[in-house]
């Protein structure tokens, strides 16, 4: 792959990553805003579910970005950065799975 095509692919990845992050934050803030309204009016389990769900979506958004980057580097045949992306992914998964 030529350097120019490589740069264009990275630019496309940047735009796709941007869209993904925006979608994640919109979804999360919709849940959080809805949950907050419910919580102030009635409280109860529905509000807690929406709030918790929104926060989980928020915490997973960067993870989704890392996965998208991994796929892009594999497509580019850029194995060094695909590997690095996997290391970051592993750390993020460990953050969910390890017990403190």
């Amino acid at each position: 792959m030529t350097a120019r095509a490589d740069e264009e692919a990275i630019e496309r990845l940047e735009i796709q990553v941007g869209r993904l992050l925006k979608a994640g934050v919109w979804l999360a803030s919709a849940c959080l805003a809805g949950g907050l309204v419910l919580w102030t009016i009635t409280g109860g389990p529905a509000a807690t579910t929406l709030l918790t769900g929104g926060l989980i979506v928020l915490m997973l958004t960067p993870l989704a970005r890392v996965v998208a980057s991994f796929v892009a580097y594999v497509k580019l045949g850029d194995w060094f950065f695909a590997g690095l992306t996997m290391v970051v992914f592993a750390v993020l998964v460990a953050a969910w799975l390890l017990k403190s």
Partner: protein
Amino acid sequence: MIAGVIGAGAVAGCLGSLLGLGGGVFLVPFLNAGLGLDFRVAAATGLMTVIATSSVVSAGRAGRNLINLRLGMLLEVATTVGGLIAAFTVAYLSNHTLALIFAFVTVAIAILMLTRLDRRNVLDASLVPGPLGGRFHDEDTGREVVYQVKRLPLGMTASFLAGYVSGTLGIGGGILKVPVLNAWCGVPMRAAAATSALMIGVTAAASAPQYFARGEVNPPVAAAAVIGVLMGSQLGFHVGSRAPVKWLKMLMAAVLLAVSAFYFVKALA
């Protein structure tokens, strides 16, 4: 309480986007000292707002080549490991130790804010940026900017420390690594700031789940803070060009020094 958190989040988010900080450094002490929440609950709230601002800012900047995805991913190895270690060790730190760390970090941030270096680092446009370097169009000068990354181990070390501080205190930590990337690693200011803004979200995502699992996330407070910060950063973005940023920086540095003094006293009491 909820309205207060939304308001505080909005102020922090607005200041954050005006000053190029995440805003967490203002929000966390307000939640802890102002509203009396436990420091870890305040930090967990800060982490949630960091993820939200990071995602929004990066989405807004995408496609202009300012974000260096490769350098970011490499440094994220260091920041996420730092963040993960912090999320575990914070459970064993006493409130006094946390107050002391916070006091030191806020002094450092206040000093950095007042003496932000901006070396030019602009090389000949025909230069090959290498696998980690980059190239972008500078809107201020109208020129093509090309740079190479130098002293990578130093950048990695700064990133690890920024990640550790972020995971311990619930702030983004961008201001701790951006000056290093800019002054010593050859990354132009705008590229360093944009790349750091992308990195802080992933970094916070490496520590937030541990706070969450320990029950240190207060969902309504975190939700209110996230909504507030998102609204505030939009506002800051719109008034950005008209705001007297220099005076604001001096004022906020003074606020941070006061916050720092408060936490020093708290740590020693």
